[in-house]
């Protein structure tokens, strides 16, 4: 197809012919085209079907506010729905498809909805689909969602990648029209660090769309020259294709840069988009204005555009929506469209202006209003009612509509600022409290002339920089159009029974607003929810004011009294991929590797995520087909001889200072002041409210030096808590903290042969015999001929056990050495599953037991909370409900006649109903004990200590299962602790 509607001139590169397809049909355009301008040049006006009634629609705008020309662009997994053709940059090979139409755009079956529009008014689904009630979720809602709607996702993984980044500047200028360019120039010349961001791929804003001269040259040329000067400053960053979509706290802005959306996908490592977080000391919003349509009968046909958009297509892209055009305007700006299009050779059939003072031109001016239009798939004629009552039909293909301009105030409202109504231009302008550091200039501030925009930009920059102590001088302004601007409201034309569209995107009409009013939805926020006016991708940029103006009229209030709905980020749609950045799939979060990770990989270990850590869960051996086989073998090997487990992940906090012991006395419930050097002690840490927070050990390496260990999961929170206590609660104490978790590779060496194994690697000058190095001892030693190490005689498994630590760089080597030296003892590496089995058998609490609900008494550790000193949580853990004798107790449970005892089961007295009021506790941790040959568990149960031997029911009321279990001591293994001390 030829570009039949292409005019002369424009800012396109005619030497570059770009081919593309729309709904399978091939077309061509030029570099510099948007998809919409290219389609219009090919005579294509029909670009989509509306949301609800499937009305045929074409673009009404030439910018990001577009509600109609939404398409699916791209192929395969890259297809992106709801892309606005008016901002999609054309590239060779682009493929676009219409959406919300079947079987085709021209013959859309659901166009039938339009016939039944009387039944599909605002809120129709709330009224219609009420019975039977169960049908709503199962049938009605899915059916409605399928029929109504926008484009469809590919349902495939996004093949593109997205970067994110951070930028800093003195002044962020949002929008590169005349005010933005002048502001950036003013600030740049003053030496300020400037970011100038614009959503368009060509900076200049309306200067590219207008024929006004600036200082004797065209607006576009002036913009080009200004940009060239700006580019010469290394303190200026020009960001095209970058939408500043949100104004956040403290002068932080969110922006998306479309890095390669305008390029044919090549599959290289370039990101598709970059999400920038911009830290601006000051910002100047130069976002321009959006032209408003007028509500008249059938005002939504393809070929009816904003008058300014029609002009932009002609001047910037050398395209017209039709060769015979008329304009309907209530302000002088609309007449420029007629002038500019006529200059390009387009026939201006008439300009329709209801005002008595309408300017005259080289074309017919009718004082009147448009009252109807015709043309099913594209505009064919408009019906005009003259001031004198005469009706006339004009045969046209294009209609430009101008009801005046609305300043783009959205970003000024993101921190809950409310715009103010300005009567002289009948529009909202920025008002109230703006986001910190923000000022507004140009059309966005209600300065609707070119001169006003230039002056506002320069003055805005000077004032913004002055607040930063940077002295700037406004440059001499180029001579520019400075016509006085007055806008009188014309929200809709009363005549005509056909629907008068206010919100094109959501198919909301003047009548729908009246219906909402009639049914009591009077507040603008209710109006929005009831009619969906102002929702979806255009966020009411075109419709908001029209809707609330009609509502104001109905309620008899002023528009100022009626107010607007809240503007929220994002200003235009942002791809979820851009927000996710690189944090997707296996890179969703960083992972931490243990010192033995590579060794464990070589052993074929199965890994489990524990917080950020990857830990070996078990080490399958040849012939083992089920994880239980591996875990049972590992646990038994520890009890029988010796096993080794990487416990580096446990948090390690170095605590030093003259008051280190007093500090530990404060954070632990039990006493630490008298712990001897060379000794380790188990510690229970409580929250301020008396609930158990974490447990671990503290080893005293010197009078003023401890190493505290935490559970893996709580390493961060405990360190944070300790720092809070140090800095905020007891800054008087001399204590210094630093994490050393990563510094030391630490292994548990457990089992009856643990000492024999260690004696083979510990340097002989260190005596680790039971007498010289008894249970709970700690020492700084050397191993393997002089490598520095720390040895702790502590046990999680209940066996004779040690933890040995070496500088992490020797960690992998240490496990190799332990395996080699332990060969004669059949040393067995064990993972977190066996570790869990061993500690459950021993009755040691872990994360499952420290779940934020349990006190020291519940854990059976009430007596550990020292009464001889103050410690965090000590007072509140003695509260009656937390410390009562007949309260919850941590107990052991053995399955009776069952091969499972599921953790999470709730406990009930035998024969009792399984109801919340009869619930007596729950199982926290469970495993199969290879040592005992049956499933066992730990759990909390009321009056547990007095119920040993009792049989209870462990039930899962959700799934309706239950098993019997006997209450036993939580210490299934060696309750006297003889093995530890052996």
């Amino acid at each position, binding site marked *: 197809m030829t570009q039949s509607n292409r005019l002369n001139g424009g800012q396109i590169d005619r030497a570059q012919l770009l081919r593309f397809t729309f709904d399978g049909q091939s077309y061509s355009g030029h570099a510099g085209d948007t998809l919409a301008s290219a389609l219009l040049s090919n005579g294509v006006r029909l670009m989509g079907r509306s949301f609800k009634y499937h009305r045929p629609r074409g673009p009404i705008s030439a910018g990001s506010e577009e509600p109609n020309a939404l398409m699916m662009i791209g192929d395969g997994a890259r297809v992106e729905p709801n892309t606005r053709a008016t901002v999609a940059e054309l590239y060779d090979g682009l493929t676009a498809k219409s959406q919300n139409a079947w079987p085709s755009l021209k013959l859309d079956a659901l166009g039938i909805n339009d016939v039944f529009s009387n039944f599909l008014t605002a809120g129709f689904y709330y009224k219609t689909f009420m019975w039977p009630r169960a049908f709503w979720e199962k049938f009605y809602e899915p059916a409605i969602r399928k029929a109504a709607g926008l484009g469809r996702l590919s349902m495939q993984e996004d093949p593109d990648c997205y970067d994110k980044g951070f930028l800093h500047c003195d002044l962020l200028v949002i929008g590169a029209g005349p005010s933005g360019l002048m502001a950036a120039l003013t600030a740049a010349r003053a030496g300020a660090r400037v970011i100038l961001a614009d959503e368009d791929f060509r900076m200049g804003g309306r200067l590219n769309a207008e024929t006004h001269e600036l200082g004797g040259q065209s607006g576009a040329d002036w913009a080009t020259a200004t940009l060239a000067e700006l580019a010469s400053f290394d303190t200026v960053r020009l960001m095209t294709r970058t939408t500043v979509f949100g104004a956040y706290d403290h002068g932080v802005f969110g922006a998306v840069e479309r890095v390669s959306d305008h390029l044919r996908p090549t599959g290289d490592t370039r990101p598709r988009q970059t999400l920038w*977080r911009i830290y601006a000391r000051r910002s100047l919003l130069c976002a321009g204005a959006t032209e408003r349509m007028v509500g008249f009968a059938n005002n939504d046909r393809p070929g009816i555009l904003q008058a300014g958009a029609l002009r932009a297509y002609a001047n910037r892209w050398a395209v017209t929506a039709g060769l015979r055009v008329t304009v309907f305007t209530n302000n002088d700006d609309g007449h420029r469209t007629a002038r500019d299009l006529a200059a390009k050779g387009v026939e201006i059939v008439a300009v329709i202006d209801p005002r008595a003072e309408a300017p005259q031109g080289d074309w017919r001016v009718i004082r009147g209003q448009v009252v109807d239009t015709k043309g099913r798939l594209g505009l064919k004629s408009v019906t005009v009612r003259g001031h004198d009552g005469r009706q006339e039909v004009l045969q046209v293909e294009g209609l430009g509509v101008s009801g005046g301009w609305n300043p783009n105030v959205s970003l000024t409202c993101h921190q809950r600022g409310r715009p103010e109504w300005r009567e002289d231009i009948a529009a909202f302008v920025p008002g109230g409290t703006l986001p910190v550091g923000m000022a507004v200039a140009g059309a966005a501030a209600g300065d609707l002339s070119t001169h006003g925009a230039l002056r506002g930009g320069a003055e805005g920059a000077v004032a913004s920089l002055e607040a930063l102590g940077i002295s700037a001088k406004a440059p001499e302004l180029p001579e520019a159009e400075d016509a006085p601007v007055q806008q009188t409201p014309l929200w809709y034309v009363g005549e005509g029974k056909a629907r008068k569209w206010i919100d094109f995107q959501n198919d909301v009409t003047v009548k729908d607003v009246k219906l909402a009013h009639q049914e009591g939805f009077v507040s603008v926020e209710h109006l929005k929810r009831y009619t969906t006016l102002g929702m979806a991708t255009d966020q009411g940029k075109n419709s908001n004011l029209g809707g609330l103006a009609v509502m104001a009229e109905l309620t008899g209030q002023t528009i100022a009294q009626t107010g607007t709905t809240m503007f929220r980020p994002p200003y235009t749609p942002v791809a979820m991929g851009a927000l996710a950045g*690189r944090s997707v799939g296996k890179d969703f979060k*960083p992972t931490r590797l243990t010192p033995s990770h590579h060794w464990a990989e070589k052993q074929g270990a199965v890994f489990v995520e524990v917080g950020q850590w990857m830990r070996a869960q078990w080490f399958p051996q040849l012939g083992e087909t089920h994880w239980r086989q591996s875990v049972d073998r590992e646990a038994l090997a520890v009890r029988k001889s010796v096993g080794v487990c990487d416990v580096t992940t446990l948090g390690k906090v170095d605590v030093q200072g003259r008051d280190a012991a007093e500090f530990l006395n404060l954070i632990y419930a039990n006493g630490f002041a008298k712990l001897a050097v060379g000794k380790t002690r188990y510690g229970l840490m409580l929250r301020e409210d008396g609930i158990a927070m974490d447990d671990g050990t503290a080893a005293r390496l010197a009078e003023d030096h401890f190493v505290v260990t935490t559970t893996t999961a709580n390493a961060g929170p405990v360190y944070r808590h300790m720092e809070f206590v140090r800095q905020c609660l007891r800054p*008087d104490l001399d204590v210094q903290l630093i994490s050393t978790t990563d510094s030391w590779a630490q292994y548990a060496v457990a089992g009856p042969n643990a000492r024999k194994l260690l004696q083979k690697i510990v340097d002989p000058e260190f005596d680790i015999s039971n007498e010289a190095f008894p249970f709970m001892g700690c020492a700084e030693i050397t191993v393997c001929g002089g490598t520095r190490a720390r040895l702790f005689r502590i046990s999680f498994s209940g066996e004779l056990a040690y933890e040995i630590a070496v500088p992490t760089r*020797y960690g992998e080597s240490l496990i190799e050495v332990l395996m080699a030296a332990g060969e004669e003892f059949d040393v067995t590496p064990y993972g977190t599953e066996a570790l869990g089995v061993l500690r459950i058998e021993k009755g040691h609490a872990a994360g499952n037991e420290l779940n934020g609900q349990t006190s020291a008494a519940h854990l059976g550790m009430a007596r550990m909370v020292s009464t001889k000193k103050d410690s965090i949580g000590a007072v509140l853990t003695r509260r009656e409900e937390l410390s009562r004798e007949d309260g919850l107790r941590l107990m052991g449970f053995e399955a009776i006649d069952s091969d499972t005892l599921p953790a999470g089961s709730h406990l009930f007295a035998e024969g009792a109903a399984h109801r919340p009021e009869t619930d007596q506790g729950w199982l926290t941790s469970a495993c199969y004990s290879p040592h005992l040959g049956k499933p066992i568990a730990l759990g909390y149960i009321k009056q547990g200590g007095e119920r040993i031997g009792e049989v209870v029911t462990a039930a899962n009321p959700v799934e309706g299962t239950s098993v019997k279990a006997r209450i036993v001591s939580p210490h299934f293994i060696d309750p006297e602790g003889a093995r530890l001390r052996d």
Partner: protein
Amino acid sequence: MTEYRLFPRTAFGAESAHSVSIAGVTLTERPDVALASVAARTGEAEIAGTMAELCGGPCGVGQYKEGAPFSTFWSGPDQWFVLADHAAHETLAAELQARLGDRASVTEQNDGWVVFDLTGNALTPMLERLCNIDLARFEAGQAQRCVIEHISSFVLCRDPGLSYRLMCGRSFARSFAHAVETIMASVAAQAAA
């Protein structure tokens, strides 16, 4: 005498340093750097003077001071990290403790962190995609704690735009390097376009 010996490995489980170059930018692991943290004990803030003597000059808030044999950077009020050659100063913490006595708490950090050098032409586009630092004001001899791809890190500036030292927890080494190298490739591809 035990017959066994331990051998060091890098944070990547290798025998030699991890190093990746893409389009003139190089990220190199520095396992040869020894580290220790120093915190003044209560009332001993004047150890800043001893630290200055040790490290060839004062190291104030947000500063990084390179010297021989010790370099240092500020890590908090009256707190510093000290860097040295690992081969010569594996027991750096003990050396510093001997110099500072009981006026400071010194902790070995040799293997708590992995140190990388990032060098190349025009590194700003890379770093602005990695960390929230105002790079135009980040000069040689400055240090900044920040988050890189959800990982707590230190960034030390040696030569703006050309040479930086990056540090993160040793266990994060693989994820950290992957994040940096991904951005190296991304920036290179964007520059080539």
